[in-house]
């Protein structure tokens, strides 16, 4: 029975391959919907070798049960896969990209469209067959599921993470005529609008890189200080607002971008509530002081302090209280204990928190674009290079290379400092021994920092909550109204059923679709990757792990530009589709699910999975029967996180939305640009409510594990926006 099954798996892959080349339309959007065979016969002869390989493989799989170890099987699969890629990338829309192919196939001069259903399916089938071939040779201890998962994920990562980045890099060095051009790159990268120190010497403005670095360092320093104050209050004092602080720390994750910026404008803009009030009291002229560094800094510190708070809280709670106790019993005063014991133990976590906030600040796009005014930073500059009137991919690519270098350098330093994985696991704190109370002076300093933070946050969210439902919050016109909501979401029941008129419906529905599609996919790929890393031994595992983590450090703007660079030409032209949005989220959020999964798997005895294997379960069955039920909290974390991020992320998608597939955040950005603050705020409120409702629903669906183990919460920093 087993042997029969072995043969059949091979037949499935080769059957799919046959269907892909014989039945499905090979090209994307081709008017003819012709298969590879038909296209090949009609003149695109370079497709015929693929058809031949598919037929030969099917024949081999039918005739020989041992096709997996037959050298001919391996040769066919390898050659098929190689040729699929070579012809796809070698012959572009307007003719051969590799000159040799033009000589070989004269008809190639007419070019070919991008991959369609047939080509995609052929790729998947060949990858499946490749996994079979390798598993039969002992890869992954012969487990076909694991082999398929590894090869599949590596292929997907190469295609959707590394290929776009490489393409983007090359765009930085390649001139408009397609030849290597170093001079323009050198001109761009040394331009004074990148590096000028004018603002420091008082002779003009600073360069974008300097601006980004100044912002990053200030923002990270302030956020770390505030995070430390919060963490000290929660972990080391009898401060009564711990629950409130923890709740506040979740807010930035579910807050759509721009709202905080808008709320700050409503309060401190030139006609802002506070500005006007202050101007009247002190008789000064209202200014636009908030635009630029102060505004961005304010918004970023509010957003990042919760992240640093979680990191530092975990570190504080991990400090064994007996160390501090020992110091105290030796007669040290609280200040001395803090200075000589607590502070040195905290230093690595402080460095980690700082770097985390630094990366986030560099990558942040939403706040600078709303509050930046003329203060340009790298991420906004990249955006305007591509989206503005002057479409200059070379410029965007050059800036991206710079930004990427900075974030990856910071990421590298961070992982060096923290060892592997920079996630923090927040567990119930150990209750052995008494924690040393912080010295009075430090406590009061912390309170002095935290109270304004709490007031600010409360104020901002009050604006957010009210703003959408009063006539004009910016002018203090507080008459309640549902007008903004109605503009966005009006609908009508009539004889044709429900009709949606509101201007926001389109983006809302797309957003829900994209989130609903990408969340389970992200979770699945993330958890699968975690399982492979935690449980499988294979060559290249280190590189695999590093690659997945690296995608964490790529700022969203860079991802967006790189997708434009890579995916609006054949063979993979998917810009303007919903698929590109989903794919973008899956690979950007993958590390979150992965880290949650790895942390959860580390607590589970591997021999349970081995027991399942010895009883006859293949890799997929092991996952389903044993692993997944035991790591439900991680699944939940991954699901919620990827859902929420898909609803609130802006930096990457802003490049990828189209008129047909607009996303909520892109729509909101448009409203903010038009000064329609109330509408933006109303929409954001709706988004937040939808998120809360969906998360509650997911909670019901996936639930919490109830096996009596102590539940652990994983504090997960989000990918660089």
């Amino acid at each position, binding site marked *: *029975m*087993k042997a029969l099954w072995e043969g059949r798996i091979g037949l499935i892959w080769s059957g799919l391959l046959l269907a892909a080349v014989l039945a499905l339309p090979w090209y994307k959007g081709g008017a003819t919907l012709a298969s590879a065979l038909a296209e090949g016969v009609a003149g695109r002869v370079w497709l015929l070798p693929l058809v031949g390989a598919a037929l030969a493989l099917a024949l081999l799989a039918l005739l020989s049960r041992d096709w997996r*170890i037959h050298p001919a099987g391996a040769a066919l699969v390898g050659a098929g896969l190689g040729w699929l890629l070579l012809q796809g990338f070698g012959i572009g829309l307007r003719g051969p990209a590799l000159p040799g192919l033009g000589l070989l196939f004269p008809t190639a001069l007419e070019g070919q469209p991008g991959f369609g259903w047939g080509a995609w399916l052929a790729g998947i089938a060949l990858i499946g067959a490749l996994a079979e071939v390798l*598993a*039969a*040779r*002992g890869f992954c*201890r*012969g*487990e*076909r599921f694991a082999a398929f998962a590894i090869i599949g994920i590596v292929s997907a990562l190469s295609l959707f993470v590394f290929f776009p980045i490489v393409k983007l890099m090359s765009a930085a060095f390649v001139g408009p005529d397609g030849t290597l051009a170093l001079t323009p790159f050198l001109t761009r990268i040394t331009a004074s609008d990148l590096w000028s120190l004018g603002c420091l010497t008082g002779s003009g403005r600073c360069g974008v890189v300097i601006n980004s670095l100044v912002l990053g360092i200030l923002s990270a320093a302030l956020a770390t200080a505030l995070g430390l104050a919060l963490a000290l209050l929660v972990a080391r004092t009898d401060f009564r607002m711990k629950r409130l602080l923890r709740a506040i720390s979740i807010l930035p994750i579910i807050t759509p971008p721009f709202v905080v910026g808008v709320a700050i404008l409503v309060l401190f803009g030139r006609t802002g509530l506070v500005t006007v009030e202050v101007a009247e009291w002190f008789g000064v002229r209202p200014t636009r002081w908030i635009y630029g560094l102060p505004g961005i800094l304010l918004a970023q510190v509010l957003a990042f302090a919760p992240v640093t708070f979680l990191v530092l809280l975990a570190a504080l709670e991990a400090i064994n209280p007996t160390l501090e106790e020992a110091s105290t019993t030796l007669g040290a005063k609280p200040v001395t204990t803090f200075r000589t014991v607590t502070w040195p133990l905290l230093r690595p976590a402080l460095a980690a928190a700082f770097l985390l906030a630094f990366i986030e600040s560099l990558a942040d796009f939403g706040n600078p674009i709303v509050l930046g005014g003329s203060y340009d930073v790298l991420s906004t500059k990249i955006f305007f290079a591509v989206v503005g009137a002057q479409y200059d991919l070379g410029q965007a690519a050059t800036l991206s290379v710079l930004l990427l270098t900075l974030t990856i350098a910071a990421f590298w330093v961070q992982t060096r400092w923290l060892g592997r994985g920079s996630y923090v696991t927040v567990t119930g704190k150990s209750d052995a021994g008494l924690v040393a109370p912080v010295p009075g002076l430090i406590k009061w300093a912390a309170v002095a920092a935290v109270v304004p933070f709490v007031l600010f946050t409360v104020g901002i969210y009050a604006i957010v909550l009210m703003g959408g439902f009063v006539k004009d919050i910016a002018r203090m016109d507080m008459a309640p109204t549902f007008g903004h909501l109605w503009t966005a979401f009006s609908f009508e029941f009539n004889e044709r059923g429900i009709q949606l008129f509101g201007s926001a419906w389109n983006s809302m529905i797309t957003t829900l679709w994209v989130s609903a599609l990408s969340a389970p996919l992200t979770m699945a790929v993330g958890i699968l990757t975690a399982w492979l890393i935690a449980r499988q031994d294979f060559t290249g595992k280190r590189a695999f792990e590093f690659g997945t983590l690296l995608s964490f450090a790529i700022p969203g703007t860079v991802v967006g530009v790189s997708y434009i660079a890579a995916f609006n030409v054949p063979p993979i032209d998917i810009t303007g589709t919903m698929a590109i949005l989903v794919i973008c989220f899956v690979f950007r959020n993958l590390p979150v699910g992965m880290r949650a999964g790895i942390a959860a798997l580390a607590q589970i*005895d591997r*021999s*349970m999975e*081995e*027991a*399942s*294997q*010895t*009883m*006859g*379960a*293949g890799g997929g*069955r092991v996952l389903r*029967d*044993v692993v997944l*039920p*035991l790591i439900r909290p991680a699944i939940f974390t991954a699901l919620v996180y990827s859902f929420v991020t898909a609803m609130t992320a802006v930096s990457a998608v802003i490049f990828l939305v189209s008129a047909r597939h607009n996303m909520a955040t892109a729509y909101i950005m448009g409203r903010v640009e038009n000064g329609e603050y109330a509408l933006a705020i109303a929409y954001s409120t709706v988004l937040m409510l939808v998120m809360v409702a969906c998360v509650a629903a997911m909670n019901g669906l996936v639930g919490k*594990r109830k*096996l*009596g183990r102590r539940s652990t919460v994983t504090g997960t920093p989000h990918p660089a926006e």
Partner: protein
Amino acid sequence: MTQTAIEFRSVVKRYGTATAVAGIDLSIVKGELVTFLGPSGCGKTTSLRLIAGLELPSAGQVFIAGRDVSRDPASARNVGMVFQSYALFPHVSVLENVAYGPVIRGTPKAEAQARAREILEQVGLAGLEARLPAELSGGQQQRVAVARAIVQQPDVILFDEPLSNVDAKLRRKVREEIRSLQRRFGLTAVYVTHDQEEALAVSDRIVVMEKGRIAQVGTPSELYEHPASPFIADFIGDANLIQGRVVQGQFTAPGMAFPVSGPDGPATLSIRPERITLSPGGPDRVLTATYLGSRMEYSVATERGEMLVSRPIFEPRLTAGQEVSLHITPADASRVA
């Protein structure tokens, strides 16, 4: 007629540059219980996992029931395994744990559960089917693990240090249970332990391993009485290793002359402590006398160095400092090198 259940042919397993198993040839007969014994890190667990398919050999072949399974994953082999930690699935009941294998292999659920019930009854767990594993005692959990491993009538059942999580007092009982189940079901079993007493007690044959190789294979009494090397003599039980020289079939060491077999040249003899008798007066001197309840253990200074002697408790006791002489029968000495 004896049938080969498992066969290793020049099996090698490397992890990167480290070699865990360095070339093993072995065949295991159907229905016998074979123990892998050896010091920590010698490759016992790895050899067991090679049978299970949880590792695939880097070179050589593994045969189970006459079939070359060297490239088959664990899921394609028919083996049962009892893990050190039992590895019961914590989220499903005892019954579902035991019925899991048959269900995976395509038995209808009702039938699989009926079979699971039957096995559970045979291992003495009737009535506990609905419990979760966490609601059982350690010994009961272990029996569930055994039931789960034998429910599919595997070609071989594997035990990796099954007693290491069992209370010291219970160990003897549990190992007898395992042995009697194995006999009752006629199972071929491979058992890993680093406790030599446990190995002597349960095995039909013992495979002693050293640094990834087989040092000796034999029945418990063969190994104990005729160790093939000083390592084995020392590893199984206690041994006095005496170095000397063989000239024309005669072994000589200070104060000793023995007829032995084997070639001339330097040689080592192994003599078990309980095979040596003592009489008062003589050239040697008792260094320490240790009371062990069931016997006395003496360390005696001789011309050949210190020797360990173990005597029944009912014999007249000697005390430290006393002059004695040692008596050894040539038949009790085995040449180990």
